[in-house]
């Protein structure tokens, strides 16, 4: 591992940073959207559901292109945000946005599944005991969906770590700025003699992914036992 260049290690660190921020910002929004989809009946529910799932089905390159159109310096949202100092284009924050968008549907799905498994009767019981909606959510719903939230978060983190197509399309492949681990592997494979370094990065990637899965399994098993009342 010592054979990896500083640049390669930089890509690993950048990937962790990008995935961390992408997951952190996506999580509360995913919980909210999953709750809306699982518990409310409203016009446009299916449209919202479709929009959320779109990045899962679209070619990632298309998602990246759409992000570029919307959040690029010329894009309507990107231009507006640039005026308040938030820039996504060709910056690591853009990589985090792309990773977050791509990971979002996985997170929503995991959380929604666990929400649908929660008996609404328990929430009604909490309401009759004096809990307002927010309290019901915080004291009953959230603890009960915690295994799903954790599973969804780890899954989303792993997805964000590995995001390639949307990232390279949206923010390009700039070493030290937007060159995440998969982008670095891709570049190393384009140059002669880069295979060994690529292999090193691939091994790190496998280790991070496996570690994440093991931790999530362990945590969600413990939480599941707790919330099942055992």
């Amino acid at each position: 591992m010592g054979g990896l260049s500083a640049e390669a290690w930089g890509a690993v660190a950048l990937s962790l940073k990008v995935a961390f921020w992408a997951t952190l910002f996506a999580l509360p929004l995913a919980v909210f959207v999953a709750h809306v989809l699982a518990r409310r009946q409203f016009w446009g529910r299916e449209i919202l559901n479709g929009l959320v799932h779109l990045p899962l089905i679209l070619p990632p390159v298309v998602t990246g292109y759409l992000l570029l159109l919307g959040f690029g310096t010329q894009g309507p949202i990107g231009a507006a945000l640039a005026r308040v100092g938030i820039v996504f284009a060709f910056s690591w924050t853009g990589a985090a946005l792309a990773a977050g968008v791509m990971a979002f549907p996985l997170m929503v799905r995991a959380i929604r599944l666990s929400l649908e498994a929660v008996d609404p009767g328990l929430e009604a019981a909490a309401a009759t005991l004096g809990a307002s909606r927010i309290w019901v959510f915080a004291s009953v719903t959230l603890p009960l969906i915690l295994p799903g939230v954790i599973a969804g978060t780890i899954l989303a983190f792993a997805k964000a770590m590995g995001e390639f197509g949307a990232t390279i399309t949206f923010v390009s492949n700039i070493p030290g700025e937007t060159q995440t681990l998969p982008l670095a592997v891709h570049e190393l494979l384009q140059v002669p003699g880069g295979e060994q370094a690529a292999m090193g990065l691939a091994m790190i990637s496998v280790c991070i992914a496996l570690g994440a899965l093991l931790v999530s399994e362990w945590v969600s098993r413990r939480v599941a036992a707790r919330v099942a009342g055992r």
Partner: protein
Amino acid sequence: MSLEVQIHQRLGSAALDVAFDAPPGITVLFGRSGAGKTSVINAVAGLSRIDEGRIAIEGEVLEDSATGVWLPPHKRGLGYIFQEARLFPHLTVRQNLRYGRWFSRRGPQEAQVVEMLGIGPLLGRRPGALSGGERQRVAIGRALMAGPKLLLADEPLASLDDPRKAEIFPYFEALRDEMAVPVLYVSHAASEVARLATTVVVIEDGRVLRQGPAAEVLADPGVTPVGVRAAGAVLEARLVAQHADGLSELEANGLRLLLPRVDRAEGAAMRVRIEAQDVMLSLEEPQGISALNCWPAVVREVRVGSGPGALVQLDAGGNQVLARVTRRSVQALDLRAGMAIWAVLKAVSVARM
């Protein structure tokens, strides 16, 4: 406390159109499954909105379609005991009990509730490790601890077997007698009504068929919401003597009843239930029969059903009793209102000590 309920609501193809007042004590909404009882109790709890009507407790309006007032469930200050306990699985029994206390300062002492329900040994456990009866006791405690103005109970015994039911009954009686919390109780079981009800509101097809004190309503042959098989009157009685041969002598409005030994002191008041199918009728005073309890009575009403049976309401010294006989017997004995007759009570059970 008194609860006033007026609800007009469409529920799919059916309609709910009920109005009743619940005085202190246990008011039982009695009717068959699907009659609309649970819809009523959910509306009172605020778990569902009503199209039209008014719900108020002691003049405090919880919901009124005319003024648009609607208090959400968490602001109503009512306790709800569900059929399936609905304990929070991620919390211990103690945390479940204290849940309502996070939001309310009123309510009884925890020690008093734990003592009354006998759940001290369970406090550290989680709901997953409790039996059905234990869960329901904790659910009662949890509802009580929030200090409710009124307790709602939706068939809280229906998912329990008979021994577990017998285990829970006394706690509802304690609620009524010790805690003085009024209760609105949904049931389709005549035995529960006979045992618990102060007031009965009979609901059939989304309407109130009859309401009044339990002894009056249960003795009405025109009110058999769960079928004539379950019909039976309740009487208030007093234990007057314990006999050496293991029988207890009770007295109800001056008439004597002999029952297998009831373990209470002389003078104790109790409620007995006489099922209509356990009452035989005789034109003359029965002689040489094994039944111990034979009362002279007057026929008040004969109600012939659509089947082969008939319900006969009797008045025995002020005690209202129902007898279930066949239509053939009605003809053979020429039963009609006002005639004197003898009632043979084959079985009498104590509904409530």
